[in-house]
């Protein structure tokens, strides 16, 4: 239903995540990563270029607009937004985007960075030419190439389609060792080698390239930026010992990542936001590090700390819920998931689904059913929520719901989301284990 009030101020997601709608400030408390677009905007006019760590993907923007019901904001380009809805900052972004090709290269890079922070990845691909990575002659052109490569990387990862990071390889090829863009590209390639292609030798090589930059940072490099660079480097670099099963080194490098983030000297509000965001991101990684060695208590403490630093990030709340569930605190996990769902994307549907799963384990079937129905509302193609709903409706004898969920499951089989065999086996596995499907 389009929002019946059709008044943006009465829509929670608008006031909570306003920067993504029109570059206005959030009306009240918000997650630190909501300030990413505002920081990127403020950097249009400065030489300082630090930003937040947790940049959401395109799906976040799409979900945010869809879940808010404010369809007037659902645009693929900033300049498509109706003039009556634009703030002065948004108006400036429209002008910069329209004049993109006549801007200085440095300014082009900053505009691309802002568009990425807002989730306009497709537009970045349109503005920066495909040959960007082979036209690198200096740091500005390298930055443009990196932004384009990053947009392509994010869009491909999101779609889960075949992808090779050739453009990042080009950045390595055409940039000198003291280039920040080279360092950035090496980190992305390191993560790709570790998480996707699982090529240990490549991961080691890219880590060394990234490390070369860290080692050669000039002595007059500003201390705040140095802390950020080093912290982020160690967090990426820890993938190598992780793949090697060397958890002691992982722990050591992640501790350094956290230490550098914590000790970054903060003297402005912008820096406070950037550091808080980086710390949350680092603590999320440290939670996974603790989970990898089976230390759920430590994992809990770390993600709890992250949630204390940024209580308005749904992703952190979903991770906290996961730990609570693993530690047997099912009802508390459900409550945390619900809190995450109330804060909207990313992960609204997932948070509802997981809350439903916890309530089911706690014997609260009706709460579980409503959670799965809400999960389906925010993601109508959720096979898992459909199958859980089907079982719960059967268990509670709610025939209309049974029939409806069956129809959905049949539809998923027809469109290939689910094979008949998977349907049957998923249902039987879930019945046997009581676990999610």
């Amino acid at each position: 239903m389009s929002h019946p009030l059709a008044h943006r101020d009465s829509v929670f997601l608008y006031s909570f995540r306003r920067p993504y709608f029109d570059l206005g400030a959030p009306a009240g408390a918000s997650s630190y990563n909501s300030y990413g677009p505002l920081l990127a905007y403020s950097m249009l006019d400065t030489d300082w270029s630090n930003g937040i760590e947790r940049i959401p993907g395109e799906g976040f923007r799409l979900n945010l607009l869809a879940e808010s019901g404010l369809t007037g904001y659902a645009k693929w380009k900033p300049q498509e937004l109706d003039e009556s809805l634009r703030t002065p900052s948004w108006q400036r972004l429209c002008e910069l985007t329209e004049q993109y090709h006549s801007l200085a290269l440095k300014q082009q890079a900053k505009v691309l960075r802002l568009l990425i922070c807002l989730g306009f990845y497709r537009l970045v691909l349109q503005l920066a030419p495909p040959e960007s990575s082979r036209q690198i002659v200096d740091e500005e052109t390298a930055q443009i190439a990196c932004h384009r490569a990053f947009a392509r990387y994010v869009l491909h990862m999101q779609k889960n389609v075949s992808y090779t990071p050739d453009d990042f390889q080009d950045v390595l090829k055409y940039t000198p060792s003291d280039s920040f863009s080279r360092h950035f590209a090496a980190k992305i390639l390191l993560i790709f080698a570790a998480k996707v292609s699982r090529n240990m030798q490549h991961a080691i090589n890219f880590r060394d390239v990234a490390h070369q930059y860290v080692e050669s940072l000039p002595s007059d490099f500003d201390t705040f930026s140095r802390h950020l660079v080093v912290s982020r480097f160690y967090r990426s670099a820890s993938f190598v010992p992780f793949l090697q099963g060397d958890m002691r080194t992982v722990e050591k490098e992640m501790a350094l990542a956290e230490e550098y983030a914590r000790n970054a000297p903060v003297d402005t509000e912008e820096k406070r936001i950037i550091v808080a965001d980086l710390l949350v991101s680092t603590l999320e990684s440290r939670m996974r590090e603790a989970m990898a060695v089976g230390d759920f208590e430590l994992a809990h403490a770390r993600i709890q700390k992250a949630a204390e630093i940024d209580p308005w990030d749904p992703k952190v709340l979903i991770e906290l819920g996961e730990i609570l569930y693993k530690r047997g605190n099912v009802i508390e996990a459900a409550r945390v998931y619900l809190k995450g769902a109330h804060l909207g994307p990313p992960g609204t549907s997932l948070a509802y689904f997981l809350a439903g799963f916890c309530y089911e384990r706690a014997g609260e079937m009706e709460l579980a059913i409503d959670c799965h129905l809400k999960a389906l509302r925010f993601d109508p193609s959720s096979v898992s929520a459909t199958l859980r709903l089907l079982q719960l409706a059967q268990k509670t004898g709610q025939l209309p719901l049974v029939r409806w969920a069956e129809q959905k499951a049949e539809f998923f089989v027809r469109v290939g989301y689910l094979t008949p065999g998977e349907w049957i086996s998923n249902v039987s596995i879930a019945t046997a284990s009581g676990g999610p499907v």
Partner: protein
Amino acid sequence: MIKPLSFELCRTFFDLAKPHPNAPLHVYESDLYADWMLRGETDRIGTNMSMPPVYRKLLVAESRLHMYEAPTPQDLPAHLRSERWQAFVEHLEAWETLDSKQRFANARILLALTYHKQASGSLLAGLSERDIASDPYVAALFYLNQFAAFITCRRIDQIPELFFRIAKDGPVGSLARVQSRITISHLFLDYVRQSELAEPWILSLPEEFEALSGTVPANDRKRLLVRYHTLTARLQEEQNTVRLLESYQQVLDILQSQTVQQPEDQILREEAKRRALDQFSLQARRSNDLELATRFAQEALQVDPNEGKAHWLLADLYYLQGNFREAAMLYRRAARLGPLATSRSWFMAGQCHEQLREAEVALDCYQAALETDPESPSVWEALHRCAQHLGIVALADWAQSTLNSNTSSAKI
């Protein structure tokens, strides 16, 4: 993609398709009238015209199926129409050429689909009030027209004069005459709240039913008798559980004596039973006999397990008795089953969860309530209270600022 559950359950309201096997009984009203219209059976008595004018609109909005938004039946896009909807629309378009009997058959569908505004407008073109006394279908059309206008305007300070005129001057043995008397009885009881004024009208009904015997099938007349017994039960001012149970037994005996030959006989019988149980439950509740009220409501839910109203009537009783867990479950189920009380059910579910000290769940319910009724100050207040209690500052701030702006715009 599969459409929402409320569409599946209440499909007939969207396009006059045949009801879902698990459809609540109220859905059969338009279904039966459409069938009877096509079969030319205009003297059958269906269910009550119970759904208010906003019903179809809410159903479409809550289902988010905006393509079914159709201010008039003719506005529904051709590709979304069932054969019955198409036939119905063709009759509406040829309205001037229809005789009063055909018009009556189609006017009933119009109201059953909750097109009250249209029914209160153009039904009577070319008809004269003078014919009320001589033509039962003209009388019925005037009755339907007045009923639609009354329901749409909700002017409860006086009962429209036309109802009295049809009740007195309508042809003896006509449905319009009987229906007007039933309506007058209800209005005296529910709006004017003077049972002594309702009493003569109620007591006149058995004789009026008798006069229908030449035209209306026996089963339909028996269901009218059920309505008579539920109305007489309302005349008991003091708590009288024994009398209420006697009335209920009479209703059961009447319904038991019905012959069931077609599936529609069964549906009509169950619907009559459910409505009687609703009324008896409300009557017991008025008499502060919550235990008996609960018994009736539980039975009503068994009869019509997919009816939202049956859920929230029982939930209200559990709530009054402090059984918040059961009440919350039923409110949630009611909300899932769609209008008319989606927002209210979510709100009440939230109230229950607050009582159970489950603030996160209550907050979730209040957010859901706002989706269907974003202007309810009670819901905003409750949302604010819960968000504050949970320390979700962002949400509490937003609820507070919305409350403030609503208050200031109300002052303006």
